[in-house]
């Protein structure tokens, strides 16, 4: 008996009562069962009834060896050996059985057989006096007793199993921070498990309404919450969303909701679902994002040295123009017949060159300044052109011929600075890979296109030394470098950035000399929302 209450005790054989018929015994047993109570008390009372109904006999309830029963009893059963094959039929089909002599070895053997067959109990009847079979009355009475006792045992076991299952479910919900709910869309009747009350920090006796839930939804997510409710209320579907809660103490929680729509017998729409508190996961993701951002910044700053000559070049060019124009302006004004129109023109050029220098500084500040990730819709071609402008001096210094092949692209969602960092890294790597090339043109092609899977792809193709085919994945490992002065974090960070944009970064050897490094990221239309409420319908993001 696997799920028997540990409080069950083996009843002592009871002494004789009299004056009961089988119908009366049955009625009394039924009443006892309805009244409920611990199984041990119930069985004891049953035995009392049977003893009273069968004067001159000794009755007992024999239970299989079960954890929770007295150790002596279990040990006794364990020591017994099956003798012969008595009682085999009844044991096999697990029906009620009647045994005439509870004191004989046969009964003990039967008891062991009952144990082997996982019978909940066997009830036996001992004839004090001469050995003979039970009377038909006794047989009928005991069989009824056995049946009713079996029902009682089964009910108690069922109750116990249900309690254990409920306790298990509650524990699982608590451990996983997941609660279950049902929502009748027509009546807005909502049922919550205890865990959802805990997540929403509401008292379990508070009646749940949509309005009550709304008071806990983060104010910024309320419009989306209403939109979701109205969308799924109208027709049967599955839905999934993630949104924030705002607690009375103004702390924020993140919950993930999944639900399945069903029609009941009357055609009413009911959703059964689960709500999981994913706050810890979201906070960890945010922390990870911050760390990734820090690392990306370190990588950017480390590339600043490689760009210093290029930066100086980009700033010096307009400065030279400013000085020349300002000098000319002064000369024009200082002439015996001042050339005012010429002076104006040179002053305008001075301003233009000043703005050009200013743009360089702004680009530098944007690319190398320390700031958190910012997601926006952007044109990858434009972002790439800014990087090229910043690095063109360096490329020129390295005698690299840069060719741009840009297709018109749809916008992408991403962090402009981080994507520019990846492009810069690829350009500088390509340039460096060609630094020793003297027998051919140092041709570098930067190409953008919409690929076959409707993702935006940017490739940087060089004519450099390439890499060993077996090292293709190691290139992206942190601190793996083939450069004498490299830290080996550029490509690793670049891959991390691209993956955080739901894309991928890879390298291929060219058919000719050199290699091509490419990344592809989804277009704005194909990007899943990284934050806020996401509503899916039948497994598809709407």
């Amino acid at each position: 008996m696997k799920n028997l209450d540990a409080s069950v005790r083996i009843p002592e054989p009871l002494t004789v009562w009299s004056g009961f018929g089988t119908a009366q015994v049955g009625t009394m047993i039924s009443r006892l069962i309805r009244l409920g109570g611990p199984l041990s008390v119930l069985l004891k009372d049953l035995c009392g009834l049977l003893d009273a109904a069968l004067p001159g006999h000794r009755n007992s309830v024999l239970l299989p060896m079960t954890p929770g029963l007295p150790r002596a009893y279990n040990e006794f059963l364990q020591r017994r050996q099956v003798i012969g094959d008595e009682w085999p039929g009844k044991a096999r089909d697990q029906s009620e059985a009647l045994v005439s002599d509870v004191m004989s070895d046969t009964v003990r053997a039967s008891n062991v057989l009952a144990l082997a067959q996982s019978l909940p109990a066997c009830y036996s009847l001992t004839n004090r006096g001469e050995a003979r079979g039970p009377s038909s009355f006794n047989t009928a009475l005991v069989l009824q007793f056995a049946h009713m006792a079996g029902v009682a045992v089964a009910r108690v076991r069922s109750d116990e199993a249900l309690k254990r299952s409920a306790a298990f479910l509650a524990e699982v919900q608590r451990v996983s921070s997941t609660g279950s709910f049902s929502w009748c869309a027509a009546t807005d009747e909502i049922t919550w498990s205890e865990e959802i009350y805990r997540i929403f920090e509401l008292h379990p006796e508070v009646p749940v309404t949509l309005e009550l839930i709304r008071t806990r939804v983060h104010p910024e997510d309320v419009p989306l919450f209403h939109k979701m409710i109205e969308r799924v209320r109208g027709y049967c579907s599955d839905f999934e969303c993630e949104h924030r809660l705002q607690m009375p103490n103004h702390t924020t929680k993140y919950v993930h909701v999944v639900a399945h729509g069903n029609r009941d017998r009357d055609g009413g729409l009911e959703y059964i679902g689960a709500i999981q508190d994913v706050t810890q996961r979201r906070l960890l993701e945010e922390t990870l994002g911050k760390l990734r951002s820090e690392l990306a910044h370190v990588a950017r700053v480390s590339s600043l040295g490689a760009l210093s000559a290029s930066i100086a070049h980009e700033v010096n060019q307009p400065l030279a123009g400013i000085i020349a124009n300002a000098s000319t302006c002064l000369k024009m004004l200082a002439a015996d017949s001042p050339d005012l129109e010429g002076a104006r023109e040179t002053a305008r050029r001075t301003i233009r060159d000043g703005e050009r220098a200013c743009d360089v500084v702004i680009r530098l500040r944007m690319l190398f300044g320390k700031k958190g990730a910012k997601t926006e819709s952007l044109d990858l071609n434009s972002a790439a052109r800014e990087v090229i402008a910043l690095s063109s001096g360096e490329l020129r210094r390295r005698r690299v011929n840069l060719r741009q092949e840009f297709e018109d692209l749809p916008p992408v969602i991403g962090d402009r600075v981080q994507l520019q960092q990846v492009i810069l890294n690829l350009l500088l790597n390509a340039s460096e890979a060609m630094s020793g090339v003297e027998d051919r043109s140092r041709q570098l092609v930067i190409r953008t296109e919409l690929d076959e899977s409707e993702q935006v792809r940017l490739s940087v193709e060089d004519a450099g030394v390439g890499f060993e085919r077996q090292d293709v994945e190691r290139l992206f490992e942190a601190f793996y470098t083939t450069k004498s002065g490299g830290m080996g974090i550029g490509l690793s960070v670049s891959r991390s950035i691209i993956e955080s944009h739901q894309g991928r970064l890879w390298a291929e050897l060219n058919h000719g000399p050199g290699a091509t490094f490419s990344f592809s990221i989804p277009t704005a239309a194909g990007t899943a929302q990284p934050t806020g409420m996401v509503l899916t319908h039948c497994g598809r993001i709407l």
Partner: protein
Amino acid sequence: MTGEARSEKFVMARGLLVSIVDDDVSMRESLPDLLRQSGFEIKAFSSAEEFLASNCVSQTKCLILDIAMPGMSGLDLQQELKRRGLGIPIVFITACTDENLRPDVLAQGAVECLVKPFSERALLDALKAALK
């Protein structure tokens, strides 16, 4: 600049063609105006190839030449002029801050190598040296 100095420059520059080759539009606009104020005749070109294709090569008395340009670099043009037997004095101008560059180009026969941004004085001194 004093009137005397201005007069000296003007005399020095009168009738001399100085060609400027620089891919940077700002230089091609500002330097000609500046040098014309000193009396030079100026032609500006956006690339070495454009200069070589012009009819100014043989008339050019001094070349103000950017080093890093797309296509043929300033150093390539210097070699090409040498190959053609044209000994045009060259004043290199560059935005590159590489310290080794100046000694290298001077060793190749350049009159001067000015790093941008440079002063008007430095440029005129270099031209003066080139036109001696």
